[in-house]
């Protein structure tokens, strides 16, 4: 479903590369976890894959279902079925969750020549998704993330994911800032959404999220590259030993290989 080949990227207008040759293959039905220390490029990878205009791809390519999306705008990628759950969701006072999601849902439907939903149909549809994150009706009428607690913001991201029904979702540190109850709700939500036709890439520091959402593949990212891949046991190993051992193993002359 997703093929990332030798991806190099930097912040637009700056010299230093953040991604230094990332390779990743994600198939339908798979759940991947990308772990790594702060500053290793994990969040940048999720933003570059989603089409954040702040980043410039200097080499390599991103293929989604065989199509090269490297130069596409963020909205075009969303139309194809890509979704990013933000680490720090933006607050938009004045626009309700419902308004944004209806506009987004129908824009994606139009792009895919599917039928749009009128306000009443959409109301039924969106309410059917509320259970996934155990939220009440009034959540829909609140301005996007405005005045939301950290946990509510993360739940809202998963709720949006449920409504927009993407094929591939990047979850950027969805576990950060969550207490244990919220973590369970968010994880349950993701598990309910996951299916054989979809794929999920989780970006996280810690193993604790992976106790609730079991990944098929775990990757370790350091200094802009994926340096090691494995199964769930790799996450357990990292939890036990930290990133220090791996940093020593892959650092040559101060640079990861």
């Amino acid at each position, binding site marked *: 479903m997703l093929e990332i080949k030798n991806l190099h990227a930097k912040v637009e207008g700056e010299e230093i590369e953040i991604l230094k040759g990332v390779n990743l293959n994600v198939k339908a039905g798979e759940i991947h976890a990308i772990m790594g220390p702060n500053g290793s490029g994990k969040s940048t990878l999720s933003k570059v894959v*989603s*089409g*954040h*205009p*702040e980043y410039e791809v200097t080499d390599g390519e991103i293929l989604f279902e065989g199509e090269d999306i490297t130069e596409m*705008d*963020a*909205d075009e*990628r*969303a*139309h194809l079925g890509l*979704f*990013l759950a*933000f680490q720090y*969701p*933006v607050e*938009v*006072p*004045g*626009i309700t969750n419902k308004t*944004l*999601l209806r*506009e*987004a*849902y129908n*824009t*994606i439907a139009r*792009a895919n020549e599917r039928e749009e939903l009128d306000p009443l149909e959409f109301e039924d549809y969106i309410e059917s998704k509320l259970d996934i994150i155990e939220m009440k009706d009034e959540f829909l009428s609140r*301005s996007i993330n405005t005045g939301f607690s950290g946990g509510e913001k993360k739940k809202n991201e998963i709720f*949006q994911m449920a409504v*927009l029904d993407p094929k591939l979702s990047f979850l950027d540190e969805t576990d950060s800032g969550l207490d244990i109850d919220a973590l369970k709700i968010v994880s349950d939500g993701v598990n309910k959404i996951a299916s054989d036709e979809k794929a999920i890439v989780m970006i996280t520091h810690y193993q604790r999220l992976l106790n609730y959402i079991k990944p098929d593949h775990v990757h370790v990212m350091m200094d802009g590259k994926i340096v090691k891949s494995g199964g769930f046991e790799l996450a357990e190993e990292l939890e036990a030993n930290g990133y220090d051992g791996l940093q020593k193993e892959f650092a040559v002359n101060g640079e990861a290989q």
Partner: protein
Amino acid sequence: MSEVIQKSTLLDYISGEIEPKGTSISIRAINERGRATLNEVAFPTRKDEDWRFIDLKSITKNSFVSVDQAGTHEVGDISEYYLPEAMNSRLVFVNGEYNESLSSIDDLPHGVVVGNLADNADHDSVKSYLGTITNYEDDVFAPFNDAAFNDGAFIHVAEETVVEAPIHILNIFTDAEKPFYATPRLLYVGEMFSKATIIEEHIGLADNVYLNVPVTEFKMFTTSNVHHARIQRDSKQASHVSRPIAALDKHAEYHSYTICLGAKLFRNEPRVIQNAEEVDFTVDGLVLIDGEQIADTHSIMDHRYAHGNSHQLHKVVVNDTAHSIFNGKIFVAKDAQKIDSFQENRNLLISDTGKVHTKPQLEIFADDVRCSHGATIGQLQDEEVFYLQSRGLTEQKSRELLVYAFALESVESMEVESVEKMLLDEVIKYTNRDGK
């Protein structure tokens, strides 16, 4: 050339004499007073602190004639501008002159007078208060209105009377052969325990040049309550210089709301004067400008007695090479303790060439008050745009939605449903333009 302008009075930009035209003694007296002041006060230039950011070319490059010399066009059907809530509480003025056939003032509660000033010139409230509320120092525009008006709107709400329907004062400006001036006037007197909603609207039907100089006076007695919406949709070639002012007695509540959408030059100087203890007022505004429009708001919240609450939220969206100026003063006199006053000016620049100047000012002489102010000038955040784009919205739609959201807060406080809907449509129309 600038030397000439500096020495000029507003009368130099008017063709012909401004003769007192008021048919009543009270109006003629104000005409004379205005004329005397006009001969003394110089037309403002950029050398005057309060005018230093504003380009008055849209006034000074023209010569304005009176409406009867302008060759004005017929007004035609304007029913689309009528508010369904105010079908029987509407006064229409065309190019500044009262139009009885387009007005409808049936079915108002007993004790409410809604009509034109000329026909009500003998009313005690007109004789007592007309021209007494305005107090603009070294000003040429209020005196110009004083000198030139011979009619206007008059509203008197008797004691313990609540007017449920909004009263719609519709100032319509038609196309004309020559640039003309108009001096709409409104006097509102609210007696004790009265309540009303006033929608004062200025609409230009064509794209012509005219000079609109309205003066509105609100005399509010103890425990009276008014919601006053001013909607400015003048021609994009027009100049609109307005002087809305309210004087509040004890326990009075005055909530004003100015929407600026039209005019090439908009200079608005709202003032609220606290004349007794325990009053509550707001001086909110929303400005949506583009092209080469200039919108300049100089407001004064004048606290002279203790226990006053006041609030001002002035929001501005600037596109193209438009220019917004905001100068908001909060005055708190020495004995005006326990004042709670808040002022905020938020500006959103959606083009690289737009300009914003903002200057909130506090002048506080009392020592036990809570007053604060703030001003922000921002552009749409890339992160916000990306967030919406990542949900599938195009970049253009994302920007429109964010501008819409910014403006929405102001529109939602409008209490008349059809006005709120109209304003939402205007906001959508504005944000649907290229917002990059």
